[in-house]
């Protein structure tokens, strides 16, 4: 009971501290902006630990963070193998193939107004569908190994990317295109020097959306059949064995992989589209 009580006291103290920090004179400094969410996150984590211990919550319902951390540290080789299988082989390769295919398709249909008007509504329609559902079909076609996961990821990222790139290629104004024309620029010069750079904010928007989709696709596809390695496989079998500390360790891996992936794409975006208003500071 004392543990639960101290959890509540800790919550009140941390909240009071955060209110002071947020409304204090230093609220607009970068340090405070970083400190406040960190305090909040740490408080939640410590409360979780204290309450789970205080109420003796069984392991099969919710393991304490310390147990998850211990499991994480113990099973690094397993987690690494799962990460390589699901993220590097499945998600990353599928992401690269899907984005490249969408890019090529977008350039191909760019010259034909008819194709664009036909494909765009179809593309946006398909992009809104629950494409994870194709996972069982693709697992059946390409087998249990990472190829089928990459195929699911390709299908999942293709349409959001296609829609974004095509929208981006429409982004230049008539005036800018006329300017290229007065310089006697060919189609490819106009594309390379004007329209592709102008499309980059849209392209990166698509790349960021797809980075999340890629990891989801690779993990969910493993629920439909996989070799005995992989994050989705580990999650579903560990759930079956009620080894929830392993499941949580796997989720920590997924969270780290997902946010680092997104962060890398966002960094490249800042570097490529430094001229865009949203990147100014």
């Amino acid at each position, binding site marked *: 009971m004392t543990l639960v009580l101290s959890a509540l006291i800790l919550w009140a103290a941390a*909240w009071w501290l*955060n*209110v002071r*920090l*947020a*409304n204090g004179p230093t*609220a607009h400094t970068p340090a*405070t*902006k970083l400190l*406040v*969410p960190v*305090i*909040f*996150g740490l408080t939640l984590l410590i409360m979780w630990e204290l309450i789970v211990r205080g109420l003796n919550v069984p392991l*099969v*319902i919710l393991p304490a963070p310390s147990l998850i951390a211990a499991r994480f540290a113990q099973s690094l080789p397993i987690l690494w193998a799962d990460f390589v299988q699901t993220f590097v082989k499945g998600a990353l390769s599928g992401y690269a193939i899907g984005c490249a295919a969408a890019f090529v398709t977008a350039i191909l249909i760019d010259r034909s107004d*008819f*194709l*664009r*008007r*036909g*494909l*765009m*509504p*179809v593309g946006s*329609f398909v992009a*809104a*569908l*629950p494409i*994870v*559902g194709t996972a*069982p*079909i693709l697992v*059946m*076609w390409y087998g249990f190994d990472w190829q089928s996961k990459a195929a699911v990821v390709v299908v999942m990222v293709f349409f959001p990317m296609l829609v974004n790139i095509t929208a981006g290629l429409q982004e230049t104004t008539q005036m800018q295109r006329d300017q290229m024309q007065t310089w006697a620029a060919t189609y490819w010069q106009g594309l390379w020097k004007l329209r592709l750079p102008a499309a980059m904010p849209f392209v990166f928007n698509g790349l960021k959306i797809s*980075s*999340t989709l890629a*990891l*989801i696709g690779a*993990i*969910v596809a493993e*629920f*439909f*059949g996989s070799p005995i390695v992989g*994050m*989705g496989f580990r*999650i*579903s079998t560990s*759930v*079956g064995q009620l080894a*929830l500390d392993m*499941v*949580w360790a*796997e*989720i920590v891996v*997924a*969270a780290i992989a*997902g*946010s680092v992936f997104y*962060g890398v794409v966002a960094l490249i975006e800042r570097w490529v589209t430094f001229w865009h208003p949203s990147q100014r500071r």
Partner: protein
Amino acid sequence: MRSVVPVLAVVAVILAIWYLACLPMNIHTALTNAERAGVAVQPEGAAERRDRSGIGLALTNPGQWADTWAQDKPRLPAPHQVLAELWDTTAMKKVTSKRSLVFHGWITLSATLLGFAIGTGMGIVLAIGIVHSRAMDMSVMPWAIASQTIPILAIAPMIIVVLNSVGVQGLLPKAIISAYLSFFPVVVGMVKGLRSPDAMQFDLLRTYNASRGQTFAKLRLPASVPYLFASLKVGIAASLVGAIVGELPTGAVRGLGARLLTGSYYGQTIQIWSALFATAVLAAVLVALIAGAERMTLKRMGLGR
């Protein structure tokens, strides 16, 4: 309206490619069946054909093309087979039958809608808290944004099994996953929307001596509606995915996700494809409903086009 012809053309091309793709995908089985029935095929013997490419086999055996579009368990079912199965399992079966897609669709839809309602409601409440409390904004918002980059769907099996072990079964666990997935888009969109009025408008209300509640009801809330609808469209699609994935880990007895899973266990490809199309139709209808509500609401508010 001027897009109708191009869209129809694209759909027709997709259907044509689909029918053509059935040839190499299903030709191996078609030839084996034909050989068993005593028809001469090129080359003879299943072992002989195993390593040949589907395209080559399809070209040398034009007589077997019809069979590639009419198999029981094809690798790739033809469009008309999927449509026939869809018609058969929706219109021809009683809705209470376990083989009816309407029955399974309703199971998934009810979980989706319940989850969507919970997620949206909580998302709006949290967004209101965030715009009114600086401390909450600074503590919660970075986590809400960061959590969108995390594959939340990965925890779906755990939620189902854990709730199952505490005795919660049926609709609620799936709804919780749906709620979780639709929650964050709504929070992020709603916070943006509640903040969207510019400083001049807030100043005007201050000159009227409006209270916080009045500012909220008369300025912030109406201004947030377009943003809310944009997030709702994302949220409902995410909810549906959540409900479907939530049906997978329990061994999947009922629901569209269960149809996908049992289909993949027993190689019933036509069943998988028809379930897939049912989810597509469901998603399209849900998004269209919200888009319709959006148009009507914005029109009433004088924002419509």
